[in-house]
């Protein structure tokens, strides 16, 4: 199972990579939506994408609309991870086809919670 981490911040990619690797994913990275699309177009289709909103070249919102326009990529889970926290922005992202939305700042638990909601990880049974 692999996750594609899409964020123009190297620090953020590093943080997310660590979190999802701990949750059992292999990872690939992209610094913008276009690089991410290149991965998909070149046959590296992930199970999960973690997508920042504001990026140069192609932003996260546009990336999502591109993915959802392609029926071959229908099964990819799309989760936004972004500082954009206005109600209207979240509604827009969900309407465009994002499955989940994490507002920065977040904790590793927050990512794990969302992935559990999406059925991508099984949380350990609480003691």
């Amino acid at each position, binding site marked *: 199972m692999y996750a594609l981490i899409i964020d123009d911040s*190297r620090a953020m990619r*590093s943080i997310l990579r660590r979190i999802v690797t701990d949750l059992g994913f292999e990872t690939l990275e992209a610094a913008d939506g276009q690089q991410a699309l290149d991965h998909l177009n070149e046959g590296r289709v992930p199970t999960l994408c973690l997508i920042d909103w504001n990026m140069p070249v192609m932003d996260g919102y546009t990336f999502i609309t591109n993915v959802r326009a392609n029926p071959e990529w229908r099964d990819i889970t799309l989760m936004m991870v972004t*500082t954009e926290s206005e109600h209207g922005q979240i509604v827009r992202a969900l309407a465009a086809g994002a499955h989940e939305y994490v507002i920065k700042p977040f904790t590793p638990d927050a990512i794990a919670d969302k992935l559990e909601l999406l059925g991508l990880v099984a949380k350990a049974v609480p003691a």
Partner: protein
Amino acid sequence: MSSLELVAPSLTDVEMVAAEVWSSFLGDEEPLLIGPPAELTVGWSAAVSVSGEWQGMISVELSAEMADQVTRRMLCLDDGPLPDEDVADAVGELVNMIGGGVKSLMPGPSALSLPVVAAGRVARPSDVTEVCRFDAQWAGSPLVISVHIQSPKI
């Protein structure tokens, strides 16, 4: 539009935004606290600007030692040499998230710039006014988070 009307985030809101960023990425054990204003030798600083319906600049200033600690914690790096670019990335990301939080408090729509990071103090334009200043403390050392806007023209 009154040029004397300053739309600015409250100190409480900025404190809350900063505290959440800190506890999410730097842990709960050493929370970000309100500190006494202290002498700060700025080792690293970073700023983002917001433009659109509200215009302003959010900045963070840290000592070199704190920047080092923050970077190692955020990026889970061990002791050993720390490249400048790692510190720049970490400090830039901190101000990006604090800036994003402040942006969401202010009238929109607006856009967040990429962070500007400096090993030293980020120079501020001469025509800005500080509207909010959070003198904070982390792990016993001081740091400053501030919000500036364009000075009102009288």
